[in-house]
């Protein structure tokens, strides 16, 4: 950049560095704290950032193992954390798969075909996307409660109903995938059509393989969304064995029984894979996020 370097530039840089470092220190302080707490013996919040003694008791509990404390008592894990993680993954996986499958073909039609009502439908989807499921909590609960009277595996306290409730994200996914399809040149499918492929074959064998990146992004977005969702899950799930991690981890922090250390270990255990997925895919996710979604 052909900017004339002034003397003040050095000072500015220094101010920037100091400012950024201070800000980052404040930002990551909570994370350092939580790591420290998970390694400290006992369920106390207080203490210095660097623990005086290190104990893995909380980690053992989080991993579902019991340990013997200093007085010789056997301490059992208070909650089935690994089961909760498994539940979360199951729900997130089902909902991500279902919503991806449902949205792919629509996105294809919106990107490549002409039909009546196309513009209105696209705008309608955009409007639907703005409605958060939080607002329909009562209706979601009442609907699944009713359905559960007839179809028990789709009622309250069922992972399938939760996964289906998350499927409301399709509107947003259709828009994301359509945007990507728009950027893929149509000529390739046209060539396939000339060779005698049906629109369906052109879609499956030509367009879909090229769209794998966006499909992965949408899947990851939906998966992460399902893993971290709190409100709907808190309404639909009650049984301790059925909880997802997002609601289950709250049980550690009741006012009367503040299992700070156990929570810390659980949080890190759950947070590391999620954060890792997020970090690895962030470059692609960010472009998807810019298209209109906000973190939940």
């Amino acid at each position: 950049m052909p900017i004339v370097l002034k003397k003040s530039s050095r000072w500015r840089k220094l101010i920037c560095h100091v400012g950024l470092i201070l800000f980052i220190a404040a930002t990551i302080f909570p994370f350092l704290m939580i790591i420290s707490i998970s390694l400290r013996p006992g369920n106390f919040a207080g203490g210095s950032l660097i623990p005086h003694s290190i104990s893995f008791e909380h980690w053992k509990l989080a991993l579902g193992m019991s340990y013997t404390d200093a007085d010789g008592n056997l301490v059992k894990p208070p909650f089935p954390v690994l089961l909760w993680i498994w539940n979360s993954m199951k729900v997130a996986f089902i909902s991500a798969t279902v919503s991806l499958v449902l949205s792919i073909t629509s996105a294809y039609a919106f990107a490549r075909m002409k039909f009546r009502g196309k513009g209105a439908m696209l705008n309608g989807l955009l409007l639907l996307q703005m409605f958060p499921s939080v607002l329909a909590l009562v209706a979601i609960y009442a609907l699944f409660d009713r359905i559960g009277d007839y179809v028990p595996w789709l009622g309250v306290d069922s992972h399938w109903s939760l996964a289906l409730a998350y499927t409301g994200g399709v509107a947003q996914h259709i828009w994301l995938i359509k945007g990507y399809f728009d950027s893929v040149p149509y000529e390739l499918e046209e060539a396939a059509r000339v060779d005698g492929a049906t629109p369906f074959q052109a879609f499956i064998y030509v367009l879909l393989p090229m769209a794998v990146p966006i499909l992965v992004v949408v899947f990851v977005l939906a998966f992460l969304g399902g893993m971290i969702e709190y409100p709907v899950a808190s309404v639909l799930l009650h049984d301790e064995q059925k909880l997802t991690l997002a609601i289950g981890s709250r049980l550690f922090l009741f006012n009367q029984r503040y299992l700070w250390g156990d929570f810390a270990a659980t949080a890190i255990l759950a947070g590391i894979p999620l954060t890792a997925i997020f970090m690895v895919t962030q470059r692609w996710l960010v472009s998807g996020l810019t298209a209109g979604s906000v973190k939940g």
Partner: protein
Amino acid sequence: MRRSYMHYVLAALGIISLLAGFALVPLFYQAHQPIYAGAMIVVLALAVFIYTSPRMYAYRYVVPGILAGIVFIALPVAYTLGISFTNYSSQHLLSQARATDVLLQKRITGDASMNMKLFSKGDQYKLYFSDDAGKGYISDATPLTATKEQHVPLHETTATDGFGAPVLLKDLFKLQPGLKQVVAVMPDGTELRQSSLRRFAQSKPAYTLNADGSLTDVEHGGVLKPNIHSGFFETASGQQLEPGFRVNVAWQNYWRIFKDPAFHEPFLRIFTWTIAFASLNTLATFAIGIVLAVMLNWEALEFRGAYRMMLFLPYAVPAFISIPVFKGLFNENLGEINLVLNMILGVRPSWFSDPTLAKSMVLLVNTWLGYPYMMILCMGLIKAIPEELYEASALAGAGPFTNFFRITLPLILRPIAPLLIASFAFNFNNLTLIALLTSGGPDFLDTQVPAGATDLLVSYTYRIAFQDSGQNYALASAISSIVFLIVATLAVVNLRLFKVNRQNA
């Protein structure tokens, strides 16, 4: 045209789901929902039409996604609106038919009560009853395997034994499910039902159904009429009978929110705070985000990659983990934040019990959670600003502040505006934050409904529906519907004002 495997697989899937759909029709019909059954048939017929008619080819692709959007978003919204006009709450959970059934199944215990002994006769059983005066009755041999109510007639008997030994206790336990279904009918017509393990007692329905849908109170006499305004069966004097049932109350819930001071007063306070929270938060995250983005886009600055990574961290960690962490850090007695403040300034602010402090804490935490998103957006948008503008301003001798306010900010505002609106809408409905951080507290002390200083409209709704003992789903739905209206307005504004940007996104 060659058909691939895929076609056959899809066709098979289609037929299976069609059959599954048809299987639901009699189910609905049996559940006394003929409207659903009819609707199901119409939907299936439409599906068959769309997936076989060549004219509807494009719709074959569109339908799954659109249908999912309708079923999973539009339907709950419509249902919410529907509930908001009823009195659906924990006192009015059932439909009128179900409430009537529940009342008809209520029984009152009569005076007659007898001891029971069970004698086996092959794989069948005889029931022997004796009243307190020593009079005996015996039934014919019956299999105790019924799953529905089974009427067993009794005959008077004088023989007190001669049946062998009665069934042992442990076998009696095994026979409980069958015994529960036995209705022993005495010669005079009195019906006896099991009241404890070895005792049967007279019981009769507490209410009987009249032809006009009203109930007659068997014990006290008197007619109970369903009141379709209050949603209860009521006596002539107005006494109400639990459980109530759902009725249409028209605008009553909305009326309560806007006219009844006990409801509209907290509603207005919460509404004001929700607007303030969403706008302040959007502004704060945007301000921090854009400043950080400008710094990180300054090419002369070293370690930009490392800084970016660190600054991005709050966004990558799931909110359900980071919010409780803050809850702990802000803890008034044990939290690190007060520990530090106490060391430096000698103060221990009560973050959770003082309304103003609680509000600022909520804002602080959410800004921490939200700034990385804004930062990423701004970084992308700043990259798109042509370099020449900055070169020209450098030649004119402009400093960084002039650059920022004259070039960067104006050029970013236009493309980021729709995203700011989206962020506003998101924070307007940020239930997760409130539920996990303060649960709405500190609570107002002067209101009848549960409401607190940090409650947003959604968390207020959530409390009315799922936490308050009243569980007033209808009132909660009415509030939700009002919020829907606000969100819909925002959505339409977004769509109208920023159409061009949206199409490019």
